[in-house]
């Protein structure tokens, strides 16, 4: 018998809901079978914690006296986007502090950026706000330099165009003579290491591969607070190839998320610096999945063995689109510590924290058990595989120079 989200919420309110993590669900289904598990379990919690570059925060500072239209804004010397109303800005996590040597001396260290500003704000630290305006009749002030804290902001919310990628590449380096520095960490030359970045069996979208319960309006755990999914994430590409478990065999679905910075915990909002690559934010996200029926029980019991990811060369293959994947490998193999690529044994290194992903799934489970977190029904679904939505490349249409026109 199928269940509804409303029925599950009723059980949560009464403290009777059976809530388990996606790891625990694997064992339950193995012991009881999917049919029994679909009846006995109401909610499966998932979690992921890793770098999520398409993230940032909207902040409103309140008005200065006299008023000012802050068209250029810096927070701890990191440029924020001020092309909004007078005292609003958006700080993106990959923005690097002004004056950073970047990759001029390769590999750069990228010590401080937007992700670190957001972490410092969430941690309650003072942040230096510097702003410039061009002066108008209504907003005459032109300069500002002041310390601010998160609590001083009127509103401050994380608003991320793309999070929680459903599956991802496994990165290796085929170069014979050069270590490379990527957003998946340092890749040692000559297939010296392989990086992967997904919580696998604990990862939210891998537990609801067709986005049946995760959609627009879904309440989620984000950075330690309760937030929401507000749209399909950028590059959402549900139409990619899937294996017999419905699991995409490469990057596929994504979500756009929002959450109140003031309710977040710096444990789950951590500024990150990728050597030779740049700044970002490591963020924790967790999504509860209602076990509505047998299919959802089966999906939420997905195991690392069932999830495969493409192995991609990041020395040439990824940056220059040379050649296809070097093969596919399961998360169970990745987590064994080594995989085989082109006949060579390659040690693996995770970039996302499975320990913290598990902690988030547990945290979410406890919140639901205590009745502090209720489930939502999506207001609208994310585009499904049958939507035909695909990830497009940029078609360049170079402009014609005056000389050519003449």
């Amino acid at each position, binding site marked *: 018998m199928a269940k509804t989200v409303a029925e599950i919420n009723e059980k949560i309110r009464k403290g009777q809901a059976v809530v388990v993590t996606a790891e625990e669900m694997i064992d339950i289904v193995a012991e009881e079978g999917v049919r029994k598990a679909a009846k006995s379990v109401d909610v499966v919690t998932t979690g992921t*914690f*890793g*770098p999520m570059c398409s993230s940032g925060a909207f902040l409103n500072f309140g008005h200065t006296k006299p008023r000012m239209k802050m068209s250029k804004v810096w927070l701890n010397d990191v440029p924020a986007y001020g092309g909004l109303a007078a005292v609003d800005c958006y700080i993106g996590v990959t923005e690097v502090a002004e004056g950073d040597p970047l990759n001029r001396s390769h*590999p750069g*260290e990228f*010590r401080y950026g937007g992700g670190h500003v957001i972490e410092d704000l969430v941690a309650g630290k003072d942040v230096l706000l510097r702003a410039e305006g061009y002066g108008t009749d209504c907003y005459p002030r032109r300069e500002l330099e002041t310390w601010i804290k998160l609590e001083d902001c009127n509103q401050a919310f994380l608003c991320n165009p793309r999070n929680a990628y459903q599956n991802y590449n496994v990165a290796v380096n085929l170069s014979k003579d050069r270590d490379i520095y990527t957003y998946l*960490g*340092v890749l*040692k030359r000559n297939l*010296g*290491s392989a*990086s992967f970045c997904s919580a696998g069996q604990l990862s939210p979208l891998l537990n609801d591969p067709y986005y049946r319960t995760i959609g627009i309006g879904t309440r989620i755990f984000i950075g330690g607070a309760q937030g929401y999914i507000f749209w399909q994430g950028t590059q959402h590409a549900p139409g990619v190839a899937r294996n017999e478990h419905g699991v995409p065999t490469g990057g596929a679905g994504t979500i756009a998320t929002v959450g109140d910075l003031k309710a977040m915990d710096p444990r789950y909002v*951590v*500024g*990150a*610096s*990728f*050597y030779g690559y740049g700044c*970002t934010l*490591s963020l924790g996200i967790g999504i509860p999945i209602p076990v509505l029926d047998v299919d959802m029980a089966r999906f939420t019991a997905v195991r690392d063995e069932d999830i495969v990811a493409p192995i991609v060369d990041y020395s040439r293959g990824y940056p220059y689109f040379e050649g296809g994947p070097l093969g596919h490998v399961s998360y169970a193999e990745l*987590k*064994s*510590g080594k995989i085989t690529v082109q006949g060579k044994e390659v*040690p*693996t*290194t*995770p*970039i*996302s*924290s*499975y*320990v*913290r992903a*598990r902690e988030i799934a547990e945290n979410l489970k406890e919140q639901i058990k205590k009745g502090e977190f209720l489930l939502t029904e999506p207001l609208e679904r994310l585009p499904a595989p049958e939507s035909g939505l695909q990830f497009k490349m940029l078609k360049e249409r170079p402009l014609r120079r005056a000389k050519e026109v003449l």
Partner: protein
Amino acid sequence: MATRRVVLRFPQQLIDEPIISTTIKTYDLDFNILRAEITPASEGLMVIEFSGQDKPLNDAIRHLKKTGVKVEPIGLDVVRNEGRCTECGACITICPTAALYIDLESRHVYFDSEKCIACELCVPVCPSRAMELTF
């Protein structure tokens, strides 16, 4: 070429002397100041890395001692700031001695300081900069 890392302690009366610059000129050494705390009217402290030929390096150190500077060799230490470590694992294939390693079952990432040779390779590689140098 050899490198030596040392801690130099300057007694108060020597703080204003250009000891470092004369030493490196005389013995043709390169240097890199890793840390300096020189406050007037108290002892000065400097952690410095000299590099140059073996013999001039040793002579330079002898010279420094003669001027009254206290010279202590160091083992720089690398420690893990547990509060900043997210246990991601991005460091484990970088560490040459497996001082940083992941437990394949629990997925916890451990740091065994006994095995650490303070090569510092993990320091810039750790995304949350949890690996720190101490003196």
